[in-house]
């Protein structure tokens, strides 16, 4: 109906200071109902602080937080209808799995029997039914993770907060849990706010991502936006691999910018707001959107020398030096070997760009 009902968590001008240190500088964002929302950034960027402010473990220095239209920033954690999956799970070691999962329900006044029934359902959801009577110390890391998830989901929170819940798991298990979490989110229809420093994880799972750095939000968008049209240097560099090129903007006309590389090459790309002619800025080009040839092909073709080929499983990464001190990383899919040639180190190569591959960045 109105916007209020669409927004699950509304953070308005939230500031967090610890003495002189500002951990979070005036963040405003609206997390939609039923969305898998990720706060992504390197450690110390303020993402966990923001999550803990929503949970109620940190107070808000300035600003306000609304949960489905209700102002919550002054409520203690136990009065907020949100639940958290903690980074190291924080399971209660003296209680069994079932007791852990039913704890929140009992605290909300459910009868012991009802709480047990619901806990059973939750354990079924995370496929831990046969471990119900065990203590957390008798479970593996992955199983403990599931208990933490079941415990947080059991009281049917309006919003589930997840603080790097997968960081302690090994790669294979982490990948499996990513998909499972996504499924559970769809199945339960609960709004998830997920904190991670792993950009791949964020891209895989999220409906929308807020990229954070140094206490500020750098970009907010869906995974494709964030990956393909990064707004600034930080986002381009933090999300995926990219070639960052120093350029000076020579002219802008008809929404196209002509940029000059330090070696004298010229490239054209879409102009962006905030970058004017004469500016010295950066271009970002994803390595998989470049291809190599031994003869110049497209208009945007730069001559250089192959330095190295690196085999990385699905892809081969080729490093090419171009005059002016720039070097490019070009990714060639391993399945394309027949079509796109792999050139030996030392040979002359042309780096070609797909149209629209280069993206101007606001610094």
């Amino acid at each position, binding site marked *: 109906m109105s916007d209020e009902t669409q927004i699950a968590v509304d953070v308005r001008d939230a500031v967090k200071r610890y003495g002189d240190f500002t951990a979070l500088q005036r963040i405003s964002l609206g997390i939609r109902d039923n969305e898998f929302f990720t706060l992504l950034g390197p450690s110390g960027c303020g993402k966990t602080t923001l999550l803990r402010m929503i949970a*109620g473990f940190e107070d808000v220095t300035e600003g306000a937080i609304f949960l489905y239209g209700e102002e919550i920033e002054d409520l203690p*954690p136990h009065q907020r209808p949100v639940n*958290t999956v903690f980074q190291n799970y924080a399971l209660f070691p003296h209680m069994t799995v079932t007791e852990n999962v039913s704890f929140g329900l009992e605290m909300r006044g459910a009868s012991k029997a009802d709480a047990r029934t619901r806990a059973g359902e939750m354990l079924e959801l995370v496929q831990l039914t046969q471990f119900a009577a065990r203590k957390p110390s008798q479970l593996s890391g992955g199983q403990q993770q599931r208990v933490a998830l079941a415990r947080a989901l059991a009281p049917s929170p309006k919003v589930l907060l997840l603080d790097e819940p997968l960081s302690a798991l090994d790669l294979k298990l982490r990948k499996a849990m990513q998909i499972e979490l996504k499924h559970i989110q769809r199945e339960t229809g609960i709004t998830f706010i997920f904190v991670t420093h792993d950009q791949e994880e964020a891209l895989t799972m999220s409906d929308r991502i807020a990229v954070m750095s140094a206490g500020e939000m750098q970009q907010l968008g869906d995974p494709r936006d964030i990956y393909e049209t990064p707004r600034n240097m930080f986002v381009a560099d933090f999300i995926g691999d990219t070639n960052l090129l120093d350029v000076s903007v020579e002219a802008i006309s008809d929404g196209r910018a002509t940029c000059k590389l330090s070696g004298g090459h010229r490239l054209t790309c879409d102009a962006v707001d905030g970058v004017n002619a004469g500016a010295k800025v950066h271009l970002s080009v994803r390595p998989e959107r470049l291809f190599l040839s031994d003869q110049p092909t497209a208009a945007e073709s730069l001559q250089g020398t192959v330095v190295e080929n690196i085999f990385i499983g699905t892809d081969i990464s080729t490093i090419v030096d171009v005059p002016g001190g720039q070097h490019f990383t070009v990714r060639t899919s391993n399945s394309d070997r027949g079509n796109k040639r792999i050139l030996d180190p030392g040979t002359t190569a042309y780096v070609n760009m797909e149209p629209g591959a280069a993206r101007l960045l606001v610094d």
Partner: protein
Amino acid sequence: MAGGAATGGSAAADTYKSARHWLLLPSWLVLVLVVLAPVCMMLIYSFLTKEFRGGVIWEPTLAAYDQFFFDRGLFGDDPPKIEWTYITIFWRSIWQAGLATILSLIIGFPTAYFIATRPERTRALWVFLVTIPYWVNLLIRTVSMKFLLRDQGPMNDFLISTGLIDDPLRIVNTNLAVQLGLFYSYLPFMVLPIYASVERYNFAMSEAAADLYATKWTTLRRIVLPAVKPGVIAGCILVFVPSLGAFLAPDLLGGAKNFMIGSLIEEQFKGNAGNWPFGAAAAMVLLTMVLILLMIFARQQRRAEASP
């Protein structure tokens, strides 16, 4: 390859096993010499005949235990009645020690919790402050306490000067004075083990409980206390057991009417007036009682662990 590694491992384990016996020898020696031997000696003494100038005559008898539990009149030929004198002293010792334990827990737990939740830099300082009284001899501290509490002492002077009371509070030579002495003497034994376990406690669990709608009080009761229970138990034992056998506080602060078991035993071995077998018998009764209490406690503990 794997087999070779396994053989190497078990050879190392063998070396370790044989070394372990030798390395444990000093501990065994200390245990036997200062714990086991004296206890055995007391056990034997308690069944011997008393020598009037202190010491024992090597003639086995149950006289000491008989004296402890039964009254046979002045000449020892009346039919035996239960002797209440010593049982009363024992009973007083138990409730004084129990009360001291409860008081120490009530004051000690918040203190320990407070210290354990300070920033890491300042914790050592707080622990140091708790141990400061231990830099002074217990006898001196107990005498000072008597000085503080006596009728014309600083405490009463202060209370009278503020007009809160008109006549001095008569505390010295009462059970209250003994209680204060015990509580004061053994409080750090409660604080330190509880501090150690609260410090290891993962406070994310408290956050998790709050997140799951538990109030602060419920969190303390259902999450914090079970997690730090080993420290609380250790603290209670460390206060209760020495309080039970204490003799300085009851002697100096309690006077003749508020005798505790420790003073009774001490009396039997001091000077020429004593009765060594009787002192040894009283010590054995005390030891047996403490052991029974600890065993009941341990059994209940195990039962609580076993039932989910």
